């Protein structure tokens, strides 16, 4: 809202008061307007921290700035003895940029000098794109843009209770900001010696002051805030701008400060915002003004708004799984780009989660893993799934239980228990136990020579058997070669026939059971062949328990 100018000077004074500018802001305001700064950028360079001032309509701020300048001239008139005008609708002297004089092709600053024209019905000055914010604070800080942003958020149907609005600006805005700062540094210092470039309100900040409230209103009052910590702000909406016309603004910096713009493999554009800001800090004012015009040259077009990006922080779901199949790998098994086995544990678990959380992707991790031909029985193996960019993140206990049911209904090859939503940090517990906990296995063993029950007795009496285990040949292609000491705590046997028995083992985590049985070319010492003095082989293996006490059990 704005006050309309009434028929007395009181109203005029009121309208100035709406923009809390000081007398010594006047030279700054005048110089900035002449340079082609937009009304909101003028407020920024006046270091005005009153947020409500930025939230007024662009037209109102423009008009009030013009009044502020005109008042100065009136005062000059008063000093000259001319009585103050108190007419109903005083002709407003507007600063207008003489666009006819602008020559985009020319770098000669002299043609860019704006003129103050005395026109009652002047074109609104916001038709000119701001030399500093390139239109961000002119054309993208209104109800219409807020509608566009909230429209995208609504269309994606996210569930959230707080939203972070983040802004990404073209890197050259930093160059233009600096150029403008150097242009008015003298006047700002005259206003107050303590003011520095850091006191100028950043474009991002002003943008958020205006837009957070507007977007919040459109979303039915959900708070739209500035990012403070990862913990509380779960949902982020990114608004980005580009301005290809002025991308080359940054290029001169590479000549002055090549160190800041080293090309890297994964970066197509070396002129990142960070690099540009760093380079500007290194360049002296003298050098900068020699290489880049002050104030910045006028752009012909405004910024282009990029697609609005929504991102919800990942949700982590943990539990324990059983694997009942000897033809099911834990993760998709691909050899030479070709898929082996049609499914996997992680896919069977993740598919129902992905659709319920409406997530874009997932990462599966677990406390150790079993081979494709190994079953995992007993209490199951702890696992966690990171669900990336979930559109829905809140599930109560009953809903999580239903999810667990859905997973268990979808396949009889696996079963999940203790399903729960956990924090990212809690995932660490799963890996902690991995190396030093006990694991229990049961294996079906074949022996070359005939055996009797009595031949197996001594295995039961063998406790804390130390093994020296070289990295198994089957994983040596992807793991370092080492000899590791592992302990088999206990063994028990169940005789089947002259060539077969069941062997139950409790071992230190990280013991390779298959290699303990067949010896791996004698690379695991001692092995079961040595102990039984005959060739032995492993026909079946089951994991009976993984003794990691995370995640906590969920009572049925």
């Amino acid at each position, binding site marked *: 809202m704005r006050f309309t100018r009434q028929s007395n000077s009181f109203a005029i004074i009121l309208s100035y008061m709406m923009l809390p500018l000081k007398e010594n802001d006047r030279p700054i305001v005048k110089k900035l307007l002449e340079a082609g700064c937009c009304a909101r950028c003028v407020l920024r360079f006046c270091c005005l921290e009153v947020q409500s001032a930025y939230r007024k309509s662009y037209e109102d701020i423009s008009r009030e700035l013009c009044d502020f300048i005109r008042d100065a001239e009136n005062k000059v008139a008063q000093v000259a003895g001319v009585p103050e005008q108190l007419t109903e609708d005083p002709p407003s002297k507007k600063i207008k940029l003489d666009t006819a004089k602008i020559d985009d092709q020319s770098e000669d600053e002299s043609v860019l000098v704006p003129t103050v024209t005395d026109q009652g019905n002047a074109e609104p000055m916001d038709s000119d794109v701001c030399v500093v914010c390139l239109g961000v604070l002119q054309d993208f800080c209104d109800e219409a843009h807020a509608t566009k942003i909230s429209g995208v958020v609504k269309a994606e149907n996210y569930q959230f209770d707080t939203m972070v609005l983040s802004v990404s600006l073209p890197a050259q805005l930093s160059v233009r900001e600096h150029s403008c700062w150097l242009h008015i540094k003298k006047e700002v210092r005259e206003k107050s010696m303590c003011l520095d470039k850091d006191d100028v309100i950043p474009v991002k900040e002003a943008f958020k002051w205006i837009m957070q409230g507007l977007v919040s209103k459109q979303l039915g009052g959900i708070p739209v805030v500035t990012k403070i910590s990862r913990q509380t702000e779960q949902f982020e909406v990114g608004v980005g701008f580009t301005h290809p016309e002025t991308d080359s603004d940054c290029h001169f910096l590479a000549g002055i400060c090549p160190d800041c713009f080293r090309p890297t493999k994964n970066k197509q554009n070396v002129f990142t915002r960070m690099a540009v800001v760093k380079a500007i800090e290194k360049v002296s004012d003298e050098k900068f003004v020699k290489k880049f015009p002050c104030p910045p040259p006028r752009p012909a077009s405004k910024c282009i708004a990029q697609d609005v990006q929504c991102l919800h922080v990942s949700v982590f779901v943990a539990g324990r799984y059983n694997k009942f199949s000897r033809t099911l790998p834990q993760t998709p098994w691909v050899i030479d780009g070709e898929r082996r086995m049609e499914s996997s544990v992680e896919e069977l678990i993740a598919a129902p989660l992905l659709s319920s959380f409406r997530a874009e992707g997932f990462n599966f991790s677990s406390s150790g893993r079993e081979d494709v031909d190994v079953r995992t029985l007993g209490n199951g193996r702890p696992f966690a799934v990171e669900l990336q960019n979930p559109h829905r993140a809140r599930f109560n206990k009953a809903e999580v239980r239903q999810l667990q049911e859905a997973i268990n209904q979808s396949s009889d090859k696996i079963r999940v228990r203790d399903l729960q939503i956990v924090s990212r940090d809690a995932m660490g517990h799963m890996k902690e136990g991995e190396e030093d906990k006990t694991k229990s296995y049961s294996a079906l063993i074949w022996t070359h020579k005939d055996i009797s029950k009595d031949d197996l007795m001594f295995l039961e009496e063998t406790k804390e058997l130390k093994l020296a285990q070289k990295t198994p*040949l089957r994983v040596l292609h992807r793991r370092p070669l080492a000899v590791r000491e592992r302990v088999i705590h206990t063994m028990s046997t169940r005789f089947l*026939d002259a*060539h077969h028995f069941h062997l139950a083992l409790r071992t230190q985590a990280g013991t390779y059971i298959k290699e303990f049985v067949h010896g791996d*070319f004698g690379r695991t010492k001692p092995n079961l062949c040595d102990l039984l003095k005959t060739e032995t*082989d492993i026909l079946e293996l089951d994991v009976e328990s993984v003794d990691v006490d995370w995640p906590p059990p969920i009572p049925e």
Partner: protein
Amino acid sequence: MEDLEHIKAPSVIDRYYTRWYKTDIKGKKGEDQCVLQHSNRICVITLAESHPILQNGNKIKSVNYQISAGCSRLQNKVSGKSKRGGQFLTEFAPLCRITCTDDVEYTIYSCIRGRLLEVNEGILERPELLLEKPSTEGYIAVILPKIEESKTVTNGLLSREEYENVLSNRTGGSAEPEPC
């Protein structure tokens, strides 16, 4: 339970490895070797069952991995997942020399190109393993071919079938040694 008797068909080698052979290496009659290639491309080098060491009835006097004054395979050290530092071998690189009790010395070769990961120190202390378990505990060395050569590295070698044909032509027909 009776059918459990018949479960044991394929051995560890049958399940995970492909057998390749090189016969009459360096033109020396009968000096045959075996390359066991794992599906993960790792190769284990062993004597073939037709090698004179396993055929001549002599015992083994010594195994020597010092293949020249300046080069010992025992010095081979690999580190990290990428196995940095391992000696790179071509197919005719000698791995070790084995001397039998009749004082005949045989040189065992790499047979394939690749990085040497380890040699079998077990046969230094117990050379009899070469005779008792030539294709398992009596192995000679482990070699990792380059990933881009993993498919072609065995191109010059004989398959099990071709090897058996070579053997039957040698003896003039019938004898087919069991694969071990």
